């Protein structure tokens, strides 16, 4: 299928819409604000009027791109993808705020912030500076922003000897920007857990996948980012490496959003997509085949587990639950909420912060009521939002496995 055909395939899916409104009942944004009339209205219905690139409906901007509408649709309508593409056209026509250009470029933030991490972190946590940022840029003063680690994951990895592993599974680790600049510890633990399971782990050259650009409607730049990333990963995919991602949303970009939303379609992307696994999906696959190391020590903690919307977009269920169930004495409480509200960069924006917090309020309430030692969640921006909304420490499932394996 060519990119052109795939684009049609996405848009044409609107003809399958029977107006059953199941997507409207599932939408977490429409549930809390009348500013967003719901995925069916702005999606399959409004799309019919968009025709020759006309934007007919500014409320589209309030869609958070969580993708739950597409998941819930019983008729196979690509509601979220239609909406994302329409928003890109709308923002092109109505102008792009500087803010959206900035928050959509984690590598730029990372390169600027990392060398001056103490200063950058001071500025980011300074109320006055945040007030200025809200007034001038429109980034909400209270929105959860991560701290620069100061030392990147890659600079740590460069000085590491290749992790010793007896195994023969070849894994190319796609760590993404946030692990590199903000959570290098997660990267170290992921590599250790993979090595413990007999994986030879390599770190291909890699940059941003373009997801934040895409969700802010900056498609040309997003395509450039994802093409560069794919060019770096494709040689590994073609040699039979499994590409394993710890950022569930960036992994989804490689699996399908680059094709379905950005319309990128080539051999390299196909090779990379079909070899890309979310890390919990990969490890649960080993478990299913009876090949996962199960030398787990007891971890006597109570944790909640929230599967982020972008993780659900992989259509793989919740493999983290199957992995955590293997850890002795770990009590896991499965939460049943679709979204924490942040949706990448959505909840950072001045005009959307309150909506995002309301979307997340159900989840926050459930977590507070469960009084867990840790709130487990696969996605970085969601972890920051959860900590912001509950005051609880939030970790990736792999961090629990790392502890249970006694890897340090």
């Amino acid at each position: 299928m060519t990119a052109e055909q795939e684009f049609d395939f996405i848009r044409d899916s609107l003809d399958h819409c029977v107006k059953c409104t199941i997507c409207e009942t599932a939408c977490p944004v429409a549930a809390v604000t009348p500013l967003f009339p719901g995925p069916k209205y702005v999606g399959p219905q409004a799309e019919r009027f968009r025709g020759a690139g006309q934007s007919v409906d500014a409320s589209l901007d309030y869609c958070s791109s969580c993708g739950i509408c597409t998941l819930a649709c019983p008729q196979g309508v690509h509601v979220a993808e239609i909406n994302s593409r329409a928003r890109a056209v709308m923002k092109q026509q109505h102008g792009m705020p500087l803010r959206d250009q900035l928050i959509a470029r984690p590598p730029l933030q990372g390169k600027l912030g990392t060398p001056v991490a103490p200063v950058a972190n001071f500025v980011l946590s300074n109320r006055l500076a945040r007030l200025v940022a809200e007034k001038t840029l429109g980034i909400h003063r209270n929105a959860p922003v991560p701290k620069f680690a100061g030392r990147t994951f890659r600079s740590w990895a460069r000085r590491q000897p290749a992790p010793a592993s007896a195994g023969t599974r070849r894994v190319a680790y796609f760590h993404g920007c946030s692990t590199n600049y903000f959570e290098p510890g997660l990267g170290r633990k992921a590599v250790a857990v993979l090595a413990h399971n007999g994986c030879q782990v390599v770190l291909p050259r890699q940059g941003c996948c373009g997801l934040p650009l895409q969700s802010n409607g900056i498609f040309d730049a997003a395509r450039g980012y994802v093409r560069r990333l794919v060019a770096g990963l494709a040689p590994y995919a073609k040699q039979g490496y499994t590409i394993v991602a710890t950022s569930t949303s960036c992994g989804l970009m490689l699996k399908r959003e680059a094709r379905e939303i950005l319309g990128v379609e080539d051999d390299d992307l196909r090779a990379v997509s079909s070899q890309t696994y979310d890390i919990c999906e990969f490890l649960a696959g080993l478990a299913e085949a009876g090949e996962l190391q199960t030398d787990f020590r007891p971890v006597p903690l109570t944790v909640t587990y929230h599967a982020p919307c972008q993780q659900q977009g992989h259509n793989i269920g919740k493999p983290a639950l199957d992995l955590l169930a293997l850890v002795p004495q770990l009590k896991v409480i499965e939460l049943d909420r679709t979204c924490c509200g942040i949706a990448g960069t959505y909840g950072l924006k001045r005009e959307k912060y309150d909506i995002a917090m309301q979307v997340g309020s159900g989840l926050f309430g459930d977590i507070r009521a469960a009084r867990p030692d840790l709130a487990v969640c696969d996605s970085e921006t969601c972890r920051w939002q959860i900590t912001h909304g509950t005051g609880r420490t939030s970790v990736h499932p792999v961090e629990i496995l790392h502890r249970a394996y006694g890897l340090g």
Partner: protein
Amino acid sequence: MTGQPRTAAADVVVLGGGMAGLVAAVRLAEAGLRVVTVAKGHGSLRLSPATIDILGYGPGRVDSPAQALPGFAEAHPGHPYAVVSPAAVAMSVQWLKEHVDTYSYVGDPSANMLLPTAIGVPRPSAVAPETMAGGDVRTAGPMAIAGLGVFKDFHPALAAENLQAATAAYGRPVQARPVLLDLPSAGQPDFGAVGLARRFEDAAFRSQVAAELRAAVHGEETIGMPAVLGMDQARSAWTELQQATGRPVFEIPTAVPPSVPGMRLASALHARLRRAGGRFVLGAEAVGPQLSNGTLTGVRISSAARVAPRMCRWVVLATGGLASGGIEVEVSGAASERALGLPVHGPGPGDAGFLPGYWDDHPMETAGLRVDSRLRPVGPGGEPVYPNVYAAGAVIGGARPWREKSGDGISLSTGYLAADAILEEAG
């Protein structure tokens, strides 16, 4: 087995997240099997009134499904009820009643209630949420049908007028008059059913509604309201409205989707499934069987980037009928089964699936799988295609649920029995 290490593959893959799939999945998971449910999207439960209609017309109006079922099954040998015994129907109803925490389901297969619809037609249902049962026109006194101005999907005058006419025709006229409540819209021009149900979770809003109702309703009237009285807290919302008005209140399922009672039931079953350790995979599609030397060892599942097998010992196929894509009509005019490629009993290529008149008995309506006495889909010779695949719900052909008012009764009882068959084999 729940909560124990899960190093191996699933015992059962359930395909479909509607009534049939959820019932089977909950039963199997509660019995300790490892269950993974895979659903392309949400099932039609969220659109249907969530009353358990067992048999409403066969073809004349049925007063007692329990009594009518044996004769009905004899007259319809290809019908799912020819496989499901009346005792099994009763057991599945009992099971459902024990598995919904939101509120009670009342009634049983021995008698149909006659519950008003949003267009005022009394509809035969054997089992319904307690919030609806008060509308049973077999016993109800005079009614005030109350609509809310902010809710355009329910018209009290239409419902009341038709209800008077229809009950008169049934020989037991019920007095019904419309009432329109004027409620603050909180800055919104109007509400959908779900938005309104969420407002009913708010105690302040409920007391406003109760005050309006008190002013509008006369002494002996029963109050009928659209089925939007709260989501998870429906029972307390309903109880509180009755206390505050001093009158019995009943819910009428809305005609325009979505269905709030359907969402309540879906969420109650999902909660049970989670509690039992069952897994639910949303947005993934079954695209074929995984075979090893002709034996089905799993299901091929299409997810975001690839098609991969999910291995299992048994499959429950509950992918729904024509409305949900479990059965599809090909360009050739033939009907096919999408998930496992099983043979469909129905119009073939070139056959007339549809007749000219809207109300005709279209052959396509009954297209679906044929099953043996253990609910295993069979081929043309009557032999099970796979010994470890069971079918449940609307994917089974031979019924006309729209005419018979039998859809949810078939889905509930076959979902229950498919789980039974597997549990028997699992030992």
